[in-house]
């Protein structure tokens, strides 16, 4: 349910992972690469991760979400390595009996992922590169 992949995460695969006859609602968050950031053209992204810990943190986030909202299953896949504009880099799928919990838990999961899962993104431009959010 929690993975760091060398290929683009597949929304269909995550949907199948979480679906089940006790769930009536699935909320899926798909993060993709934009072609610019702050007006500067992005050529590619390079993701690095501390894989074993990243998977553990994803699992902890899912447990916390399950303790806060009535959700059935949560899956999180994130890309490692290079990504081009348009590519999918993260997919989070949350299945619940009812939609409110699915939406809330999915939003919580992506917010938490961006805050604590050990994954780092480097933006590559025509004329340089930057580790995102590294400096104040």
């Amino acid at each position, binding site marked *: 349910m929690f993975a760091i992949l060398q290929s683009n995460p597949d929304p269909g695969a995550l949907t199948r992972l979480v679906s089940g006859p006790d769930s009536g609602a699935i909320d899926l968050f798909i993060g993709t690469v934009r072609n610019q950031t702050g007006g500067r053209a992005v050529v590619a992204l390079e993701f*690095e991760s501390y894989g074993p810990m990243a998977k553990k943190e994803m699992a902890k986030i899912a447990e916390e979400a399950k303790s806060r909202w009535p959700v059935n299953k949560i899956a999180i896949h994130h890309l490692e390595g290079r990504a081009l504009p348009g590519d999918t880099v*993260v997919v989070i799928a949350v299945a619940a009996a009812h939609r409110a919990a699915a939406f809330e838990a999915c939003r919580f999961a992506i917010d938490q992922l961006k805050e604590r899962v*050990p*994954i*780092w993104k480097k933006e590559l431009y025509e004329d340089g590169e930057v580790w995102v959010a*590294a400096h*104040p």
Partner: protein
Amino acid sequence: MIKNQHMQLRVLPFGIARDIIGTSPFTLELEEGARVQDLLDRLKVQFPELKKLRSIAVAVNEAYADGSQAVTGEDEIAIIPPVSGG
């Protein structure tokens, strides 16, 4: 005079921290009984660029650790600059 015992710590710096420290894994010698905060203090002296980061966290054995946690030569220690997944 009693000589303090030292230990060799195995440190994995990630992202921009790896760029700053230059090698991964990186070996750091600290006195026995050292804590996460001691390790961070030492690294910031040795690599002042680390002080410019927005934040820096440490994970011990794949879980976030606070400054008071003791470390040993058996631990896998990761240096975690600001994360930016998603």
